[in-house]
């Protein structure tokens, strides 16, 4: 299949054809299995360009991959694609502290970048759940959003410029390295979140921020869910400037609290609020602002942490639900499908969360509800026995009902993870005619449709196919 050409471009050691190795690239958090035809490691932009030139000519589809930590199947190689593993393009090319700017290759891991940035007292503040492995390229291609997105926003707000290789092999640069550029269409933003369907990002220029030295975490406990959600806009209005307001429902709180013996009070809901400041007294002032708001909600159960280990403990109900559920429900595992990250207006959050809980209860689905409450992104953590067809069927039914609730609340089916494969059946419901415009845009960049096929509902309308499901008892759409 022309592997010699690829071997000539990147070297034999960077073209993987062994079946056993290919199999290991076939999975992510979704139920899907797509084994690549080959895994290729480009080492530089020239390699990517030559690979795409060849692939376009041979009509071989190409799927780029960072660390394969997607929740959506976005980096699974559908349609017999070859997989471009970008992890060896991992150079930090430039740091300009005075311009708060970094230039990296796509395979740079965000934690390693931040370790490198410490000496400049700067950081890249996008702490996605998979930060230990996530690559800057993967985060850009999926427009990642970290736990502290309330203050720092999604990654798209931070990227100034991209180098992208188009399917023709042509290398283009979008945007500018300066802070502001109004020169024409904003192609940078077009490529961010495009999940590798338009081209391959080979260099990213982005903003850096000074590291706030003082950090505090507040844990607030509530006796009813509505208060926990209604307080969120009040905290934002108070001027306390939190970097994160995270929501944890009763099930998640109770599970982690019991399994890890954290000693937190029983509650219907918990909020975890992070504040980051440059002065200690300002931090204390901001914490007081939050507590003043909480007192107006007649809140009495709270914990405040200004030491790292204490903060880590307060974050556990938000981060350790999988550990707790593994012990509480042996044989169950987390699955996301299309309802892992809806985003709704803040004013509709409590309504939507209550509806989601009602739907899960109706379908007997084990779940805990987590949320980036300051932003409106809801993360239902769903646990099923993947060997039980009935549970898959119930989950699929619940999925449709939840998408309906989210769209009726004028929300979006994805505030964070993107579309990939899992959300394909619901994209047209949200986008309508706009999806056709997206398809036209795709055709401009990629007329032969070689770039990451089977994603974003651009070229397919179905997500499930029997030969590409990992679990024997999966319930097909």
């Amino acid at each position: 299949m022309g592997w010699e050409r690829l071997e000539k471009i990147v070297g034999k050691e960077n073209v993987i054809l062994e079946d056993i190795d290919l199999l290991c690239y076939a999975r992510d958090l979704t139920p899907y299995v797509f084994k690549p035809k080959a895994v290729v490691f480009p080492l530089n932009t020239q390699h990517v360009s030559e690979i795409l030139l060849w692939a376009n000519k041979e009509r071989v589809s190409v799927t780029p991959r960072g660390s394969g930590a997607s929740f959506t199947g976005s980096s699974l190689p559908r349609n017999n694609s070859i997989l471009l593993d970008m992890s060896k393009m991992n150079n930090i090319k430039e740091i300009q502290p005075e311009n708060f700017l970094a230039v990296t290759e796509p395979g740079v891991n965000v934690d390693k970048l931040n370790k490198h940035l410490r000496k400049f007292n700067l950081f890249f503040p996008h702490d996605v759940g998979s930060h230990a492995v996530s690559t800057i390229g993967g985060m850009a291609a999926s427009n990642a959003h970290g736990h502290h997105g309330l203050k720092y926003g999604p990654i798209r707000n931070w990227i100034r410029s991209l180098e992208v290789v188009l399917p023709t092999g042509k290398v283009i640069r979008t945007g500018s390295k300066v802070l502001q550029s109004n020169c024409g269409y904003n192609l940078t933003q077009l490529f961010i979140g495009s999940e590798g369907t338009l081209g391959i990002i080979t260099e990213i220029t982005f903003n850096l921020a000074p590291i706030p030295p003082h950090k505090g975490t507040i844990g607030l406990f509530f006796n009813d869910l509505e208060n926990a959600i209604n307080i969120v806009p009040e905290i934002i209005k108070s001027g306390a400037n939190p970097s994160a307001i995270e929501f944890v429902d009763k099930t998640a709180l109770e599970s982690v609290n019991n399994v890890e013996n954290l000693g937190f009070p029983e509650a219907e809901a918990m909020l975890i609020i992070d504040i980051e400041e440059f002065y200690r007294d300002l931090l204390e002032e901001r914490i007081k602002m939050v507590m003043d708001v909480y007192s107006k909600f007649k809140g009495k159960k709270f914990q405040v942490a200004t030491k790292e280990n204490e903060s880590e403990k307060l974050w556990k109900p938000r981060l350790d639900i999988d550990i707790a559920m593994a012990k509480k429900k042996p044989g169950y595992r987390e699955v996301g499908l299309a309802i892992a990250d809806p985003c709704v207006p803040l004013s509709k959050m409590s309504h939507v969360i209550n509806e989601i809980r009602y739907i899960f209860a109706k379908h007997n689905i084990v779940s805990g509800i987590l949320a980036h409450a300051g932003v409106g992104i809801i993360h239902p953590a769903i646990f099923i026995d993947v060997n039980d067809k009935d549970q898959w069927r119930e989950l699929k039914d619940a999925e449709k009902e939840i998408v309906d609730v989210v769209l009726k609340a004028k929300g979006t089916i994805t505030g964070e993870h993107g579309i990939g494969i899992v959300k394909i059946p619901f994209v047209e419901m949200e986008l309508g005619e706009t999806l056709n415009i997206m398809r036209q845009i795709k055709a401009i960049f990629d007329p032969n449709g070689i770039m990451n096929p089977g994603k974003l509902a651009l070229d397919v309308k179905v997500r499930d196919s029997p030969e590409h499901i990992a679990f024997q008892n999966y319930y097909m759409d």
Partner: protein
Amino acid sequence: MTLETVKPVIMECVSCGLCRANCPMLEDVKLESATARGKLIICYSLLTGNLQLSAKVAERLFQCTACKACTEVCFSMLDIPKVVEAARSVLVEKGLVPKTIRDMLISTMKYGNPWSQPKERRTNWLKDLEKLNLKILSDKEKTETIYFVGCTPSYDHRCQEIAKSIVKVLSKVGVDFNILGNEELCCGDSALRVGEKGLFDMLAEKNLENFKRHHAERIVTTSPHCYNTFKNEYPVENAEIEIQHYTQFLADLIDKEKIKFSKRLNKMVTYHDPCFLGRYNGVYEEPRKILESIPGLTLIEMDRAKKNSFCCGGGGGRMWMEETSDTRPSLNRAREAVELKPDIIVTACPFCLINMQDAVKVINKEKEVQVMDIAELVKKAVYDENKRVKTRFQPSE
């Protein structure tokens, strides 16, 4: 053990890929098959019949140091090394193990140690020790504390220095302890990790018999591997015996002010956490407490320390495999350590000591940095080499 026994763990993996972080084999091999996710996909494929056992499967499944870095970052804290062990046990049954591993197993079975050394030479390391308060236990003699030397410190020339240092320090302090001498047998760690459960069970049975025959109340080990094996892998009857790594034992003696340091060691050191001491057993503070107690010693931490420590590559049976790659775990770890410009890289594990010392040579830093075990530093700081006395102990040949 079969793959079916670990199927629940395999099924629980959500394939999120977090296990890519800090995986020593991924940093070396660069392929997903090196990660825990990759290995669980391979195991799942073996279970479903999508993949058949082969030499290639064996090669991938032996690319694991059992360091538990993956478990540490895993959302569900899955015990990946146990899955790898189960998979390897299937390979052992089929004879699909690397030659060097097979040699190690044969040696362990034949000689009671993985180093292909005769049993009767187990105590040769004691020959040049001076008169110490040390006894080799006779057949049914009772003792409270057995110092379990371990195979590597008994036979490996460099690691014998660790055992000698421990014996000297304990004798100096006046601790009443004994060793098993030539009666000592491999703890079975390597056999277990490569999937030879039958051999492991046999060694465990014999070692437990030994401990019971001497009415041992406490076993102190040189190696974190022996320590972990006795503590967590041996049958429950062993629970009545207190198992300690020597760093725990020494830290306790320092707490009780029984160890008094007479010399300053004006050195900057960085401590490499052995996986089977740290991640497996949470022993992070005792080694540091010892180092911080030694006058003049300054401890600087690597970025990857304690629960995030980066494996030297010696666990999970990898100690017995050929390593030639320029990105093998020990080299990556040594490069990380020398960045801090310490005088000494300190560790508390014979495997780590051998690997790190070799790595420092390979990266041409041996003139700039030493590699030592904590026990050697303690000995230097407490033991006056000039006051020698005649031995009354005669080790067997």
